[in-house]
């Protein structure tokens, strides 16, 4: 009996802790589990969620993408600024293209040149932060005719009663999940992450597989930037700051292994949503918003610890 409780705790410990947390918050803040608040949380989660869906591909190959936070800033600035210049549709296309290109750049450096993913994307984070300021000249940008444009639909619209950002997020997650589970590309991603050498011996060009995961990551961040720009109808130069960590925390919390080869999109959706509810719950309990950064630390450590502990059967090394 005791053993069974132990193994349930180990396997579902995070979920159980999360449910306890939900109940705890709901008891203390009656607004927490109302439909309106739940939709709010999902709407907030949809931007990091879209990014996390893309980054999950990269993580499954055993690599990292830390550049997505700055990339979100840059792309949001681009989509908002270009909206004023070339109109909504071309601006959206440019944003997606720019996201894919930056991703491809990371992909070449990691996949083909063989540089360390952590360093390449960390450097890219810095580079893009600078690039944003070159682009914007340091000032914030705003959509000029905010009341008149259909561009608002991505961030503020509703579809069948659901906020459009949530629909885009879930749709993106569904497509990504299908690609990973049912296509040969998905199989290659798991293969390269699980054992790169064996995959190469099996005729899989690991370089291209890695390359495409970064393109997907950049593209997903592009979609997130469109939602973000549409919701805010403007962009500050710091709008995506720190998002790369939230994204990574969500992926880890979902249980996708940073070593590659194991994990999935639905895990990421669960992980990033849990993170959203935790942050929202803390706000409702009256904590300042910056407490989320402290909590992110706790969550990353605990999630990774539980994962490792379950794998090796011991809590300590």
């Amino acid at each position: 009996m005791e053993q069974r409780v132990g193994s349930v705790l180990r396997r579902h410990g995070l979920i159980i802790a999360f449910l306890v947390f939900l109940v705890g918050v709901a008891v203390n803040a009656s607004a927490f589990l109302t439909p309106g608040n739940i939709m709010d949380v999902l709407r907030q989660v949809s931007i990091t969620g879209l990014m996390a869906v893309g980054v999950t591909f990269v993580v499954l190959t055993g690599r990292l993408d830390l550049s997505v936070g700055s990339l979100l800033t840059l792309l949001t600035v681009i989509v908002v600024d270009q909206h004023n210049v070339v109109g909504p549709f071309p601006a959206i296309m440019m944003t997606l293209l720019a996201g894919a290109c930056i991703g491809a750049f990371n992909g070449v450096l990691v996949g083909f040149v063989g540089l360390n993913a952590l360093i390449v994307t960390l450097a890219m984070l810095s580079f893009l932060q600078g690039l944003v300021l070159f682009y914007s000249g340091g000032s914030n940008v705003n959509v000029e005719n905010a009341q008149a444009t259909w561009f608002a639909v991505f961030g503020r619209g509703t579809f069948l009663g659901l906020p459009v950002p949530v629909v885009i997020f879930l749709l993106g997650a569904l497509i990504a999940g299908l690609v990973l589970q049912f296509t040969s590309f998905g199989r290659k991603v798991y293969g390269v992450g699980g054992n790169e050498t064996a995959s190469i011996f099996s005729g899989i060009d690991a370089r291209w597989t890695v390359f495409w995961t970064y393109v997907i990551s950049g593209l997903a961040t592009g979609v997130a930037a469109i939602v973000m720009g549409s919701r805010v109808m403007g962009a500050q130069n710091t709008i995506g700051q720190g998002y790369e960590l939230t994204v990574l925390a969500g992926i880890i919390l979902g249980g996708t292994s940073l070593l590659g080869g194991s994990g999935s999109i639905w895990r990421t959706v669960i992980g990033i949503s849990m993170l959203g509810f935790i942050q929202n719950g803390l706000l409702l309990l009256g904590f300042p918003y910056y407490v989320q950064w402290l909590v992110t630390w706790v969550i990353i450590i605990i999630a990774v610890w539980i994962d490792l502990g379950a794998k090796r059967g011991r809590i300590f090394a």
Partner: protein
Amino acid sequence: MSQAILKVEGITKTFPGVKALDNVSFDIRPGEVHALVGENGAGKSTLMKTLAGLHRCDGGEIFYQGAPLSLSGPLDARRKGILLIHQELSLSPELSVAENIYLGAWQTNRFGMLKKRELRRNATTALEALGCGFGPDVRLGTLSVAMQQMVEIARAEAFSANVVIFDEPTASLTDSEKDQLFQTIRGLKARGVGIVYISHKMDEIFDITDRITVLRDGQVQGTVDTADTDLNQITRMMIGRTLDAYFVKAKAEFGDEVLRVEGLSKRGLFSDASFSVRQGEVLGLYGLVGAGRSELVETVFGVRRADAGRLFWKGREIDWPTPRQSIDMGMALVPESRKEQGLVLMMGGRENTSLPHLRRFSDLTVMNRAREMAVYEKYRSALSIKTTGPDQAVSQLSGGNQQKFVLAKWLCAEPGLIILDEPTRGIDVGSKSAIHELIADLAEQGLAVIVISSEMPEVLGVSHRVLAMSEGSIVAEFKGDAMTEEHLIDSVSHAREPVAAE
């Protein structure tokens, strides 16, 4: 009969889904070499890891020097005088020999600094006792595998071990290094150390051991005196039946040439290698580890790039292929290391089988699971692979079953040429002979087969023709009556002679 130094009584160890050890009892006497044999997955490694403090058993008891033994970990075992010498060496290449001998058990002064002088002195004593030709200050990474193994054995001296467990110690040793190792083992034995010797190589077991304990499916099948038994009896105990012939050779009916390689060179690895292989032919490639055999076939397959050379496929000259192109052409390479190069361990058998042929198993990139399952099931049953299901991670399978999945993944493409790099290394006798039979079958079906092996009986037994490789060059070719162990040894050691001569 002397008193047992280590006595195992009825120990049991269960892993999720498997009873790895089932009521196992055996003992080790001082001054004896006790062989532990069994097929892969029989429980040898689990038993040894339990004795060395890496596993805790679920039931039963271990008595050491007459008292019940409980271990907190491998270091504790080492301190108490039980030393496990791993199959894969457990040393740190960046540290010195002396630091490695005492790895994890370093003496420190009260400021936490390493007592370097004492460490060196003790290490020197241990090395000298073994007659090692190197000092304690050498960086470990610069030593050969055999020398590194001596460093591990030096721990036996340094910790005055009473029990030393060797797990497949000769797997990557040359013959002369093996002789030296056996001398060392006899030295330990003369000093009253109890030795457990795990190996798949029967000639070694009959050469060096005093008693043999056979494990099968986690149970002890019996313990016999080596002098009173023979290979047949041991094999019968191991697999529950006798093996009449170890090697089956395919009928020598050859068709057209499948592959020809001319003047293949890669600086530092091999030079000017030329050979060809025909349909229905089994070409053996013999050489010691480090002779460049694996590198040569990996280059032919396209995993590595050559500096120079020409490649002909079915009579037509082709550009150097990528692995993808090689596979599509009909070439298959079963690589040397199944865990590093052969399998994605966390995937199941189904996904591993289809990994090289994703395009064949998908329609417009969408995987066709029914087709995948059909092929998986066909080869799983043809090779009689034991799993709990198509998605059971192959990491949970025994070495023999893993190797069969590597074969399945390459055979299911029905290739024209299959290259097998050490296909039977580290697998049990039963799976071994199954693979030998398979090689003969494949050749008779008209495949061209290249078999790399460092086991002479194997390479001579299965091949129609054997190339001997030494230090990156193909030094000789033998066929028919010229295919003898003497000739092979002669050819590869001839090239080495000037280096080895004193």
